[in-house]
């Protein structure tokens, strides 16, 4: 079998990852905004006698080193050139896309051009002569709609043909005067040797002053003098000339200069006042969708596990050794089971987030907030990774690559860990429902508190870090697009699968350790077990903030790995510390009861779609198993609030800490962890005391 390595290269947001997902059946991250892919990502597939190794690269406008993600693409192409480059071009924006193509042509690597977004081009009345374009450039040109099934065969056949015949683009010719300068550099200056890339490419980069070259100075100065222009402008004009020439030769456009829908929508979405209003409404809908709608089902699953499956174990296997029963009910059902019960919530949250990303609304948010965030030393672009933090802090920190300077990166990196990710969300939902009649306002308060402290942290960072020049923010705004339902569902499904997998592996393993600590030494009084001792020691630390029960403090220990573990270990700990009598448990009756409450849960879900508020589901009785009763007894509502505040602010997530470490160094990560611990404790203390004095509950 022959192996072909194919790299997908193109401007940002042209559909590279979408096409790879389509042909290789992968689930690479896609979104309707520039800068989704920030790392080189790989996929493979077998077709006929060929094994394709496909590489997705961050989108780029040129082969420079202007920002980190551009450098990823440039470095890759120069250092390990693929067998074929697939240059994805936005058919609606041919002329501008061809600027990059012109640079790629100089690499002399076999190439296939894909004109993606063909559907949008048709709508705009843009007609491209594909045959002529293919003749001009000398390679295959394919029209495409990124998500359509038929693309796979056409693209792969063309790749095989290009590979077998080694079809490279025709050489480019710039204006005579530039060509002479390039040839002069080739004859008189030492071009870096590279067996894969033709010397001419490096000569052009030396002429552009991107590769330093003392020997070129004279040639450059002469050219600048002759044309009375800066060398960069001269070369770019040549490249633009090429792009314009190709595009004007192949594009036939029945140009309707109509105002597009996007422009109308943007009149509101980017308006200083309406924009903010729209933002608030959208956030409300997101919150409503991910929380209110999915909550009844989540709650039901949790209840089913603790009030039905748990007693069932004891009822069906009365003779089984206690240790086995306690493992199954404590670690598996009440532990991991509780975490799993939040799957509908997580699925709904990602469904909402991917709607935001795929519609193209997300990149508008930076513009609305640019003025505001500039007060603390970042530009609006910082909002993008920050918003992604509500999905998961880890990819959000990776997305900092779209910022250009290290100072802004550090500021936003310090903001992200305070955004409420789904892990926090499930802890809030879990405890909120146990302690408060209507937890929605409490959860909203916690979200806002997180945002408040990210801003405060940013202000502090802005004061501490040495000042640098403010760069202008340049951002491309994609047209609004209808999010393809299939892709949105797929993203939600993939995230959900990831969540369940985590629950089944990592969180399960941690819960088993907690459970084991609860049983060492065996048959001891629970307070004398290892877990009991640790928890009791920690009570000293957490007593001032209202967490006085050793079971609650113990659950915080394994939570430094991930916050969801709080729930699973609480399940395990409280279930181990309480002995319930199940002799009266009637399987048939209990099952009937469960089915009735499922019916009610489904009704509530349906109801919450039509009711504007959050309250209707929360006035329903929440999980009433003995474990939740025990949890309710062990903390006061004030203590529970303070517990949630601490969980919100303290970075108890090993994945976040390690990504901070790998991106910004150990010192930053450790300092930040300490800072978040102290901040979390102090704020929890304050809120605990103040809320008690004010008698808010």
């Amino acid at each position, binding site marked *: 079998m022959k192996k072909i390595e194919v790299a997908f290269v193109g401007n940002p947001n042209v559909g590279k990852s979408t096409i790879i997902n389509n042909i290789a059946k992968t689930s690479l991250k896609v979104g309707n905004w520039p800068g989704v892919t920030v790392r080189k990502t790989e996929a493979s597939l077998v077709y006929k006698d060929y094994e394709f190794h496909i590489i997705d690269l961050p989108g780029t406008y040129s082969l420079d080193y202007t920002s980190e993600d551009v450098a990823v693409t440039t470095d890759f192409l120069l250092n390990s050139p693929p067998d074929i480059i697939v240059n994805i071009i936005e058919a609606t924006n041919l002329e501008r896309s061809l600027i990059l193509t012109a640079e790629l042509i100089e690499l002399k690597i076999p190439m296939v051009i894909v004109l993606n977004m063909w559907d949008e081009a048709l709508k705009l009345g843009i007609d491209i002569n594909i045959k002529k374009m293919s003749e001009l450039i000398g390679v295959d040109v394919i029209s495409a709609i990124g998500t359509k099934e038929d693309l796979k065969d056409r693209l792969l056949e063309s790749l095989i043909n290009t590979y077998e015949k080694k079809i490279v683009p025709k050489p480019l010719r710039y*204006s005579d005067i530039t060509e002479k300068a390039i040839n002069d550099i080739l004859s008189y200056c030492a071009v870096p040797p590279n067996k894969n890339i033709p010397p001419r490419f490096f000569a052009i980069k030396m002429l552009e002053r991107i590769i330093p070259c003392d020997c070129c100075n004279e040639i450059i100065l002469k050219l600048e003098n002759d044309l009375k222009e*800066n060398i960069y402008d001269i070369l*770019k*004009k040549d490249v633009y000339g090429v792009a314009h020439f190709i595009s*004007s030769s192949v594009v036939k456009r029945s140009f309707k200069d109509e105002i597009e829908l*996007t422009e109308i929508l*943007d009149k509101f979405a980017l308006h200083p006042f309406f924009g903010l209003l729209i933002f608030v409404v959208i956030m409300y809908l997101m919150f409503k969708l991910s929380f209110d709608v999915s909550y009844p089902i989540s709650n039901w699953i949790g209840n089913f596990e603790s009030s039905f499956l748990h007693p069932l174990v004891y009822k069906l296997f009365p003779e089984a050794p206690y240790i086995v029963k306690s493992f199954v009910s404590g670690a598996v059902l009440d532990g991991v089971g509780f975490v799993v019960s939040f799957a509908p919530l997580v699925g709904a949250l990602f469904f909402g987030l991917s709607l935001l990303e795929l519609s193209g609304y997300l990149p508008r948010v930076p513009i609305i907030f640019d003025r505001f965030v500039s007060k603390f030393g970042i530009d609006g672009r910082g909002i993008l990774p920050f918003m992604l933090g509500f999905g998961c802090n880890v990819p959000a920190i990776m997305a900092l690559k779209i910022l250009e300077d290290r100072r802004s990166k550090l500021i936003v990196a310090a903001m992200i860990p305070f955004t409420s990710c789904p892990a926090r969300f499930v802890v809030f939902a879990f405890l909120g429902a146990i302690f408060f009649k209507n937890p929605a306002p409490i959860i909203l308060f916690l979200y806002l508190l997180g945002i408040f402290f990210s801003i405060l942290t940013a202000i502090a960072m802005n004061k501490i870090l040495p000042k640098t020049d403010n760069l*202008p923010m*340049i951002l*491309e705004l994609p047209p609004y697009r209808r999010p393809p339902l299939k892709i949105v569902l797929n993203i939600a499904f993939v995230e959900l699968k990831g969540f369940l997998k985590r629950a089944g592996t990592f969180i399960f393993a941690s819960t088993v350790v907690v459970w084991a600590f609860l049983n060492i030494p065996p048959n001891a009084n629970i307070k004398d077990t290892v877990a009991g001792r640790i928890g009791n020691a920690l009570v000293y630390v957490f007593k001032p903030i209202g967490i006085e029960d050793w079971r609650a403090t113990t659950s915080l220990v394994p939570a430094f790995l991930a916050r969801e573990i709080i729930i699973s270990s609480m399940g395990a700990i409280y279930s181990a510390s309480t002995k319930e009598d199940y002799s009266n448990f009637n399987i048939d009756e209990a099952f009937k009861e469960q089915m009735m409450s499922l019916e009610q849960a489904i009704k509530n879900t349906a109801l919450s779609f039509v009711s504007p508020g959050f309250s209707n589901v929360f006035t329903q009785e929440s999980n009433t198993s003995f474990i939740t009763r025990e949890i309710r007894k062990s903390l006061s509502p004030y203590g529970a609030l303070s517990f949630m505040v601490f969980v919100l602010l303290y970075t108890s997530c090993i994945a976040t800490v390690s990504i901070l470490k790998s991106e910004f160094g150990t010192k930053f990560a450790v300092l930040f962890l300490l800072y978040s611990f102290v901040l979390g404790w102090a704020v929890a203390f304050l809120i605990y005391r103040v809320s008690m004095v004010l008698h808010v509950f």
Partner: protein
Amino acid sequence: MRLAEATQDKELKIKGYVVKGHNENPGWKRKLISMGIVPGATVKILRKDDRNTILKVYNSRISICNCLADKVEVE
């Protein structure tokens, strides 16, 4: 073909970059150029205030915030 000739017939053009912009910060100008905002490109202004300008360059909407007004002039 030089670009200046190629774009003669189009309505709006970026006139040029005010010195402050590119002398102080060549990286910034480079970025604009690589995104298609070159002297001579076809441009439509969609929105402009003291801080924020959104241009339509070719078919893309490009937003430039933070002190654009004195840097790119459109004729």
